[in-house]
């Protein structure tokens, strides 16, 4: 299974390595760097790289590469999924996962990695269990530990590990019992030049933060559960009950977790809440280009649209933009050629608009295509 793990920062430093079997020299990462050099962006590095003796399987998260080294046949998705779980665990522990945070908490990171894999095979990956084995660092506990001489590491086996609900720790107590649910829905749409929707789909998530004492058994029912025809669940959800009654019944883990995610495919009709009216003309009589974009709401059922951000990756030849907005702020990064317009809330009475000129590099080849516009 997984032989070793190297964590590499964007500048190509291997700043942490962990071996679960005998040591593999970090020179194996050179193959990875070869591919990194070839790729135009970090996203383009293939997740699996075959070298003469090893297989490098990598994920790219928070601008770091997590490169797992395998020597034998293994399901690549298994490794990829595990690496993502590792990063998720770090995020859960340290609230974010960056190079400096990993360096700062290297001991906890190392202990976690040691607990999560044994001989390259996942051992404990549930955050509830790990948190019982290794306490997440926080200031209060650090002080308490220095005073009392206690450590972050538990000496007893988390009971969850042995039970049939490995995701929940036992003996949870809260004075205020609370449960919060976040519904997140993302609409992905491709819209063609003329403004008609080529395809649109919805990806939704229900994220929970559950702070309940004891062993709560929750059920969540939906007004119209028939909408969910393609779902995936956290292991705590009783699948059969969902199948028969369309009720989510589960004993939740303690803390934050993703209860379910669902996908509404391109077959069904998806309402897109905004429209974009654009006119973009690059190369207009020598001086440069002209840009005029207006945003407007569409099928919102009376709700206001907030936090609108518009991103336009500009062609390479664009030097700068001189734009005026009637709402929000815009930034243009001359290095990545990305124009970002943070619109904020869309007011129906005064539609947000951005217009102005774009200065182009003189003598550059003509821009052959108009850039695409991402709205989020």
């Amino acid at each position, binding site marked *: *299974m997984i032989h070793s793990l190297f964590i590499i920062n964007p500048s190509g430093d291997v*700043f942490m390595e962990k071996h679960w*079997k*005998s040591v593999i020299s970090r020179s194996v990462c050179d193959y990875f760097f070869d591919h990194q050099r070839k790729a135009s*962006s970090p*996203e383009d590095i*293939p*997740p*699996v790289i*075959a070298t003469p003796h090893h*297989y490098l399987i990598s994920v*790219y*998260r928070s601008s770091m590469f997590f490169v797992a080294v395998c020597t*034998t046949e293994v*399901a*690549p998705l*298994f490794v*990829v999924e595990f690496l993502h779980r590792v990063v998720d665990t770090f995020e859960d522990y340290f609230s974010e996962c960056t190079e400096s945070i990993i360096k700062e908490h*290297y*001991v906890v990171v*190392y*202990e976690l990695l*040691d607990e999560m894999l*044994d*001989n390259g095979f*996942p051992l404990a*990956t549930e955050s509830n269990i790990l948190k019982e084995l290794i306490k997440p660092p926080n200031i209060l506990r650090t002080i308490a530990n220095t005073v009392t001489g206690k*450590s972050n590491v538990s*000496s007893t*086996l988390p009971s969850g*590990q*042995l*039970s*049939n*609900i*490995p995701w929940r720790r*036992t003996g949870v107590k809260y004075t205020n019992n609370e449960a919060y649910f976040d519904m997140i829905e993302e609409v992905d749409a491709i819209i063609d030049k003329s403004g008609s929707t*080529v*395809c649109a*789909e919805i*990806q939704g998530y229900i994220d929970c933060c559950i702070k309940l004492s*004891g*062993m709560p*058994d929750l*059920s969540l029912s939906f007004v119209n559960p028939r909408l969910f025809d*393609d779902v*995936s669940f956290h*292991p705590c959800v*009783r*699948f*059969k*009950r969902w199948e028969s*009654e369309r009720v989510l019944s589960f004993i939740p883990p303690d803390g934050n977790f*993703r209860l379910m995610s669902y*996908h509404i495919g*391109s077959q069904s009709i998806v309402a897109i809440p905004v429209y974009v009216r654009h006119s973009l003309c690059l190369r207009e009589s020598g001086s440069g280009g002209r840009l005029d974009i207006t945003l407007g709401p569409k099928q919102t059922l009376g709700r206001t649209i907030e936090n609108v951000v518009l991103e336009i990756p500009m*062609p390479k030849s664009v030097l700068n933009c001189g734009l005026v907005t009637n709402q929000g702020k815009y930034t243009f990064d001359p290095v990545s050629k990305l124009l970002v317009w943070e619109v904020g809330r869309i007011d129906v009475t005064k539609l947000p608009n951005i217009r102005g000129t774009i200065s182009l590099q003189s003598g550059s080849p003509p821009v*052959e295509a108009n*850039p695409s516009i*991402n709205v989020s």
Partner: protein
Amino acid sequence: MYAPGVNSSTTLSSSSSYNNDRPPSAEAVEVATDPASGGFFNSDYKKHDDLKQMLDSNKDNLKLEAMKRIIGMVAKGREASDLFPAVVKNVVSKNIEVKKLVYVYLVRYAEEQQDLALLSISTFQRALKDPNQLIRASALRVLSSIRVTMIVPIVMLAIKDAAADMSPYVRKTAAHAIPKLYSLDQDQKEELIQVLEKLLYDKTTLVVGSAVMAFEEVCPERIDLIHKNFRKLCSLLVDVDEWGQVVIINMLTRYARSQFTDPNLQDVDEDEESKRPFYEDENEVDEEQQEKRAPTLDPDHRLLLRSAKPLLQSRNAAVVLSVAQLYHHTAPRSEVHQVAKAMIRLLRSHREVQDIVLTSIAATATRRKVMFEPFLKSFFVRSSDATHIKLLKLEILTSLATESSVGIILRELQTYVAAHDPPFVAAAIQAIGRCASNIKEVTDTCLNGLVSLLSNKDQAVVAESVVVIKKLLQTQPSAHREIIIQMAKLVDSVTVPQARASILWLLGEYSERVPKIAPDVLRKMAKTFTSEEDIVKLQVMTLAVKLCLTNPKQTKLLCQYVLQLAKYDQNYDLRDRARFLRHIIFPADAESGGPTRLSKQAKKIFLAPKPAPVPESHFKDREQFQLGSLSHYINTKANGYQELPPFPLEAPDPKARDVETEPQVMEQAPLFTAKKVSSKKDSKFYSDTESPDESEEDENSSDEDDDDDEEEEDSSSDKDEEEDDNEDEESSGLEEKLPKKVVKSNAKPKSDEEEEEDESDEDDSSSESVSDSDSEDESSEPSSVPKKQTRNAKPAKESTPVVKPKSNLDLLLDLDDVSPAFTPIMTPSLGGFLTPMSTPSSQVKTQLFPDIQPASAVISPNTTSELLNKINSSGLEIKYRFTRSPHLYSPSMASAELTFHNHGPDELTDIRVGEKPTSGGVSIHDFAPIPSLSPGSSLMGTIGVDFADSTQPVNFEIKIGSDRTYPVALKVPVGEVIRAVTMSEELFLKQQGGLRGMNENTAKLSLTKPCSDLKSLTNKILTVANLGVIPNSDSSTLRFAAQTLSSKSTVLVSLLSSDNQNLTITVNCEKMVIGSMLITQLKACLAD
């Protein structure tokens, strides 16, 4: 905390520790505590002295600090091996965190410092006997991770002990240790397989995943070890952790390929036909229907597919893909498409996941187009995708293209051509070419589109189009003279060598269509020959030779000139080619003997009609690898890849998988043997079936969960105790048992024994198991029934260390440590929750009649009755249905499932039970009040009613809101005021003997149509009344037993048939009214 004396004794003579010469003084420690003092660090010769000093101190926090810094060095990949002696002696530290870090360090460096590492071994050996399971496990983990060949025998012993440990966690660690030891010393294989075999038999979800992982690493060829565990693995699958699931499914795919016959060999056509309709209502299709669809499928094969299917809903992409590959490789063709939707869902995951899933889809799509066609739009490229994702999507789009969908795909491809990403644009143009050649209808449109691209501003686009057009023209060169002319003109402008070469080749091939232009182009090329790329030069030569053959008058000299230039080229390929061509075309140059035989044939050689290239997906040849494997992804055989065997023509003996009961018995639920052998086998099967009655039970049980946890806890801990008693008895009875110290669960010894017996006489395993359960009735029944009902609680229970009298003290002590795990865990995971929880009732009854066991209802009737009519109540309709599962509140209550449906226009709020009867022993446990019910929606609830053994309707009120009250009457059929029980046949006869006279009702009945088998009546009877089937030796008699809910009076029903038509029904019951009503009911139901 830690006496210095101990410290020095453990340091032994270990190395030249700084400390040995000068015992730590307080001052020295103080100096060392300042880790920031960089001076220490920089001086090379004693760079780690401060760390050593800290490690030798007797303060835990100093040691910890030092260890943390050392681990920091290890993590950064810096050399820290010279600290080994100083670190290793801290392995005895009492501080758990120091110890852990020492372990981490030890595992990293032990290989390099073998001799010193041996010093730590005794500590681990001691820790292996520790009462704390976490310490035992971690000791084994570290011990087996120390890669020192010298300790192989020690590790072997440790693994053997741990494999028989009572803690499943330790057993899991043992499973992990097996491949470690195997990689260290391959000679241990045989011995390890023995241990592994034992671990594979384990029934704990925690262990099996790791055991299968070890199996895959150590002996994947020993497929015979899986036979006996196959069904268990299938049924435990949903409860195993995600990582274990992936490994198990991958292994079972291989198993299925070697043990079952190809499901797609027969009735292919039928499958194709039935494809569509089944797809939609897949979830409703019950098991029997599925059987009908694929009648040839082995029941075990079906079991595997059925138990893997819910995992498509897993959050873990690896699990989903492994199920997908299981279906892809082993499922009947008509069922494979079920996995498509889940695979599409994965496309919204991380980039890396997308990439791997798309690769799998691309490979699948070449063979199963229909499967992904409905999801065509999901493969449309987004501008935010990474390039390799875009390329994969293009690949899939082109393989999915059909006559109907090609229009929409081409439209997309057109947009892609205008994108910014050069490799992607090139791929899009190629994709257009592939669509064009695959689908004849659009070839011309595509060709026109491609030709228009020739005037594109972008060189790369033009070049790519040229290459693609060249390929297309080869397929139908007839009528495209204009295109060739247009392309010939491009020679002046196009600079991309690949494109130039393509144009030249085209001109040469079809030179007779453009007789004027071709020689001119050759002239131009001859001029620039020296500055061209190699690939272009080669084509110039080819063009020259071809023209020379067709039009020697104009071009012979040119050709000679070109060949002459090539003769002195730097590239040896070109020189070779030139020499070779010259000798064919101009043989006279070499010798004056006239045309040779070769040159006569030159025209045939160079202008032979050439087959057009067939553009194919480069994913086509991946079929040989297991989908989703590393080898499949990189399309080469990876190290350690296990070939997927082809389906055998003749299935190997399916009996090999028989463990206790015959598979036939398992497949049909309500039969005598299946019912009676209330073993774990049964319960597992239940957790997997999808029949509606079970979901009712389940719903009930989880409602109980909601109601109160406390009671549940009590009851199950009571049960535990009972079970313990039981086991003591039972295990003392088993004398020839292996010298195993611990009995993990009551199920364990029994199955062990049976397996032994199984091997001796495998043929009549079913009869054997029946008699087995009979003989063990006394001891095993009380626990096996709750067991059956609470499969979910099983792992928790199994972890219950039940200690035999002779077990040693250490193990007894361990009980304290484990105790937190006792908390009854009732949660079911994914699939497990179907089984009803055991209820207090079982306990009560066991005390009353130790030999009469409550049984779960085999059938739960689907008949619903109306409690509240929508007309009476302005829109609220309530229906009820008896679920036949005991109500949690009181065992004497029957639970009815209520369905509330709001037909009215308004929202109904606060629906609850109003006044209810209090007299006559009748009582009601309310359903949970419903705060609001919106129009058109419906909700479920459960109500518990104690009918006090009467069939009088129970009257109560339903209240809606603050002011509306509706009286309702809950009528109960007599079959629902009793509860099924089981007992032995002797007991039945004995009880029947005691209920003669007034308590006996007899009726004669003749059936309208004769039935061949009495057993076929069982279903009818069980639908009407909640009765338990009694095992029976006599085929002309059927016996059923039940107890009334409230008073627990026994109800006995026997059915005797003289011939196939005439029946005698006898009902014996203390409650005469119940008896007579029941017999009337039974008569009525059997008559029609």
